[in-house]
């Protein structure tokens, strides 16, 4: 199975809150899990990524939590700001194998209210 399920579809959080976006996958061969951030009129840009040998990765205010046994991973945004308002995509792939590209979740439209 190549599917990656992402939730919620949309999310509104007050400034300073911690939005959490969740993703679940089925293919146990997936070994690379990036998150992409997309602003209106722009292409997605790589935000942060994790491999399954670690359970958490932080880059600035963004944290990925990874649960290999549950086949789930999530994005947390600490001290969220209005500038974080964007669409976020989780993704997964099998690295290094000539794979058929990233499999993306359907996206979460995040709004951070001032």
């Amino acid at each position: 199975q190549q599917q990656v399920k992402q939730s919620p579809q949309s999310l509104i959080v007050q400034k300073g809150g911690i939005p959490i976006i969740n993703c679940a996958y089925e293919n146990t061969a997936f070994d690379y899990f990036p998150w992409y951030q997309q602003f209106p009129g722009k292409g997605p840009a790589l935000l942060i990524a994790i491999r399954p040998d670690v359970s958490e990765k932080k880059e600035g205010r963004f944290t990925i939590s990874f649960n290999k046994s549950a086949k789930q991973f999530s994005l947390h945004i600490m001290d969220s700001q209005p500038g974080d308002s964007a669409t976020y995509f989780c993704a997964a792939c099998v690295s290094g194998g000539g794979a058929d590209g990233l499999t993306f979740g359907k996206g979460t439209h995040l709004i951070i209210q001032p």
Partner: protein
Amino acid sequence: DVKVTQSSRYLVKRTGEKVFLECVQDMDHENMFWYRQDPGLGLRLIYFSYDVKMKEKGDIPEGYSVSREKKERFSLILESASTNQTSMYLCASSILWTGGGYTFGSGTRLTVV
């Protein structure tokens, strides 16, 4: 600092027309991809290529073809455009075997009338 360039931001074409979407990357990446983005459906892979003249079908290749005659250029072709191909098309590139560090272009919004 533009690395993946899509030739058009907006296109309007008529049903039945042959449409070419062009993508150029200047990072010497081996892999190139075409995705379409639709509300509620996320990003879906149309075709990808890991070398010149090589192409592989993605999840939704029907109605599309691709061409990669040079390493830096990957073209998406709609042989006979239909209204259900109205969408945002995104090109991306990556280093071979990189495990997902894709660089995307800004997209081409295609409307077929």
